[in-house]
C-alpha cells in the first residue's frame, strides 16, 4: 500500500516540486498551503508523514503541529520539518517541545530528502 504524505508549504513552487518528486517516488501526496488547512487535512486524512514548513501565513507549522498533537490521532502523527537557515529559533522551540522527528534543511538535495522520508516512515514507532 502506498504511503500517504501531507505537504504543508505556503510556497507554491516548492510545494509543487516536492509533490512531483514524491509522486514519482511512489507516494500518495496531499497538499496544504498553510497551517490551518494542513491541520484540517491531517485530521481528515491521517497521513503517514507530514512535511511541514515552519514560516507560513495564517498558522505556522509549529502551531499547527501543536494543535494536531491535541487531537486523538495527532498523538502518533509523524512529521519532518522543512526549515531554512535563519529559522533556528523555531527549530529550537520545536525540539524543546518534542515535536519533529527530523529536521531537514531545504538546501538539501531532493534525493537526500526522499531517503530521509523513507527512513522515517519505516522506523518503528516508539509512541
Amino acid at each position, binding site marked *: 500500500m502506498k504511503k500517504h504524505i501531507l505537504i504543508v508549504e505556503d510556497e507554491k*513552487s516548492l510545494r509543487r*516540486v516536492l509533490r512531483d*518528486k514524491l509522486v514519482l517516488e511512489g507516494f500518495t501526496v496531499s497538499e496544504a498551503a498553510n497551517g490551518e488547512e494542513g491541520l484540517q487535512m491531517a485530521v481528515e486524512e491521517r497521513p503517514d508523514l507530514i512535511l511541514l514548513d515552519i514560516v507560513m501565513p495564517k498558522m505556522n507549522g509549529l502551531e499547527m503541529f501543536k494543535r494536531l498533537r491535541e487531537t486523538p490521532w495527532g498523538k502518533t502523527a509523524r512529521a519532518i520539518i522543512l526549515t*531554512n537557515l*535563519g529559522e*533556528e529559533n523555531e527549530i529550537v522551540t520545536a525540539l524543546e517541545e518534542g515535536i519533529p522527528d527530523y529536521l531537514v534543511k531545504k*538546501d538539501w*538535495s*531532493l*534525493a537526500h530528502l526522499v531517503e530521509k522520508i523513507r527512513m522515517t516512515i519505516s522506523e518503528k514507532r516508539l509512541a
Partner: protein
Amino acid sequence: MSFFSRKFFASIGTKIIFTFSGLFVSVVLIAGFYLDRNSSEQIASVTFRDIQNINHNKAENIRTFLRSEKEIVEMLAADTTFADFLSLSPEDLTYSIEKEEVSEELNNFFGEDAKIYQIVLIDAAGKIVVSTDVPEEGIDRSQDDFFTNAKKGVYVKDFYFSDIIHKNTYAVSAPIKDEKTGEFRGVIVARMNPQNLYDILNIGGDNTQTQENFLVNREQYLISKTRFLGEDAILKKQLNMANVEDCFAASEIANTQIGEYPSEINLKNYIDYRGVPIIGTHAYIPETGWCLITKMDTMEAVAPSRQMLFVFYVTGFLATAIFVSIGFLLSRKIIHPIRSLQRSVEKVRNGDLDHRVGMNSLDEVGDLSRSFDEMTVAIKRSRAEVDQKVREQTIEIVENSKKIEEQQRATLNILEDIEKEKENAELLAKDLEKFKLAVEGASDHIVITDSDGMILYANASVEKITGFSRTEILGKKAGAGELWGGLMDLEFYKTMWRTIKEQKKPFSGDVQNRRKNGVLYQAYATISPIVGDDGKVLFFVGIERDVTSEREIDKAKTEFVSLASHQLRTPLSAIGWYTEMLLAGDAGAVSSDQKQYLEEIVRGNSRMTELVNSLLNVSRIELGTFLVDPKPSDVADIARKAIEEQREIIQNKELQLTVDIQERVPEISVDPKLFWMIVQNLSSNAIKYTPEKGRIIVTLRIAPKGESFGGRYLSQDSLCLSVADTGYGIPLNQQEKIFSKLFRADNVLTKDTDGTGLGLYLIKSIVDNGGGEIWFQSEEDKGSTFFVIFPKTGMLKRDGTRAIG
C-alpha cells in the same frame, strides 16, 4: 604569719578554727544554760524536801519534848505531898516540918532535872509558898497567867524574860488538887531552861553554811538563836518574814491541830530577815503556839548545781581549747602545702620560670602542684616563643623605620623632581595651547586629560555633542558617570586603561555615551597617550565621534541582509530542486548539452547559496549570539574533509599542499560544523591568496602545556591548527584590520575579486565564542600563517539561539 593581721583572719585555717570553735562554744553555752536551769530547779526541790523533813522531824521532837515536860510537871503536881502540905495552915504544928519536906522534895526534883531553872509552889490564894533556888516566897502570883490558866489544867506560858531569875524562859504550870475531894489547893510552876529546846533545834549542826532552825512565838518574836542573830535577838527581834506569816495563817494552825503537818507544801522562795533569798518551810507547834522555821539560803542550796555548771563550763572550754589547737594544727597541715604552692606561684610570677613546686603528695594539693608545674613549663615555652617573635618584630620595626627614612629622602627627591616637572609642564602648556587652537574648531569631540584622566581641555564640539558646558567638564574625570560616560562594563574600562596607561598604546572602540539630557548615543572613541621624553604619560587625547546614526544604519543593513537572504533562499531552493529533477530525468531525458547547461545552473545556484549563507551567518553574528554545541568529534577527519573539498582548485592552481595531521588525534569536544567552517575558510583563503605553484601547509596536533606554538606559549594542553601559505601576505599597516568585517587588503583587491571579506570576520567570531584564540604571522609577498588553538578540553558550550551552518 602574724596574728590578728587581715591575712590571719582571711586564712582558711583561721576561718575553719573560728567557725568550729565558735559553734562549739555556743553549744556549750546553750547546753550550760539549760543544764543550769534544770539542775537548779531539781536541786532546789530536793533541798526543799530535805528542809521539810528536817522541819517536820524537829517539830515532832519539840512537841514530844514539850508534852513530856508538861507530863513531868503534871506528875509532880499529882504528888499528894504538895496537896497535903497546901491543906495545912501555917499555924499548924506540922506546917514548917512539912514545908521543909516539900521544899526538899522540890529541890530534889529540881536537882534531878537540869531542864528546869526553878520550881515554885503557889497556894490556892495565889501566894508563893515554896520556891527553889531563888527565894520569892510570899509574892502574890494570883494575877499571873501561869496561875490563872493553870487552874484549868496544865499550862505552858510563852517565852518571856523572867525578872526573878533574869533569864529567858518559859513556864509550865499544873494545878494541885485534893486527892479525895478534887479541891483546888494551888499550882506548881516550873520555869524551863530553853537550852533543851535549843539542843533539839540544833542550829548549825548540819554540814551547811546557812541552814538553820529557829522558833518564833505568836507575836513573831524570835525565841531561839539563829546563825546570824545571837541570843540578844531573842524576844527583841520581831520577824515579819512571809515564811512566818504563812506559818501563823489560820488555815495552817487549823490543819496542824487536827493532825499531821501538811506533807506537801509547794516550794516557795522566801526572803529572810537578812533580805537574802532562801528556801524555807515552817511548822506550827500547837502546844505553845510557836512556829518552827527551817530554811537555807538558795545560794547554798543550788551551789552543787553551780559547781556542776562550773565543771561543765570548764570542761567545755577546755574541750574547745583542745579542739581549736587540734584544728589549728590540722589546718596548718592542710594550709602548709597551699602556702608553699602559693610561694611557688609568687616566685613564678616574679619571673622564676625554672622554679618547680615539686609536691608529690597524692592528694588534691599534689595534683594542683603537678598541674601548676606543667603550666609553668608551658608558660616558659610560650614565653620563649613570644620572646622570639618580639625579637623578630623588633628587627622588622627597625628595618621598617629605616625604610621610612629612605622614603622620606626619596620624597624630598621627588619634591625636587616636581619642581623640574613644573618647569617642564609650563613648557608643555605652551605646546598644548597651540594644539588647542588647532582642534578647537574640529567637528569631532576632543578632550585632553592629565595622566589620571582629569579633563584639562575640551573643544567646542564636546559641548555641542554632550550638552555639558566646559565649566562643568573641566577638572572632572573623562568618561565618568557624572558626565557622559560610565555606561560600559568594568572589563571595558580595565582593558582601556591597561592599553593606554601601561602599554602606552592608543585604544579605540565603540562606547555607549549619554548626553546631558539623558539621550544615549554611540561613539567611536580613540584615546591616545602623549608620552614624554622620560617615558611617562603626560596627557591623554581622547577623540570621539558620534556614530549613533552609523551604527543604526549598520543594524538596519544587517537586518536587511538577513531578511533579504531569507527571501533569496526560497527561490534558490526552488531552482536547486527543479534543476535536480531535470538532471535526474524526472521530466524526460535530457541531452548532453542540456545536461551541461543544467550543471552550470546547479553550480551558480550553489555559489549563490554559499554567498547567501555567509551573509546570513555574518548578520546573525552581528544581531546576537549563536549556538556553539560541542560534542566529541574526530577533528582530524573533519579537517581532512574540509581540505579535500578544495582539492580540485588546488590542483588547478598547481599548489603544493602538505597536510600534517598528528596520528591518532583523540576525539575533542568541538562543534563539528564550526570547526569545519574554520578549517574550510582558512584553507580556502590560503588557496585564494596564494599564486600558482605556491605552497600550502596545514598542521593539526595536540600540544602539551608550556610548548611553543606560533610564537606563543600554551597555557594549557591545546588543539593546535595552523594554515600556512606562501601567498601575497598582509601589508603590515593593514594587519590590525584583517579580522574586520568586509575588510579586504589592498594588495589582493586587484588580484582576486572572489572574496567576500566575511570569512576571517566570521572565523574570529567563532573562535572567540568557542573559547579559542586566533592569530597570524604575515609578511607581504612572503606569505601568511594563521594559528588557531582550542583547549584540549574542547570548545565552550554557548547557549545561543541560532546555529550556524
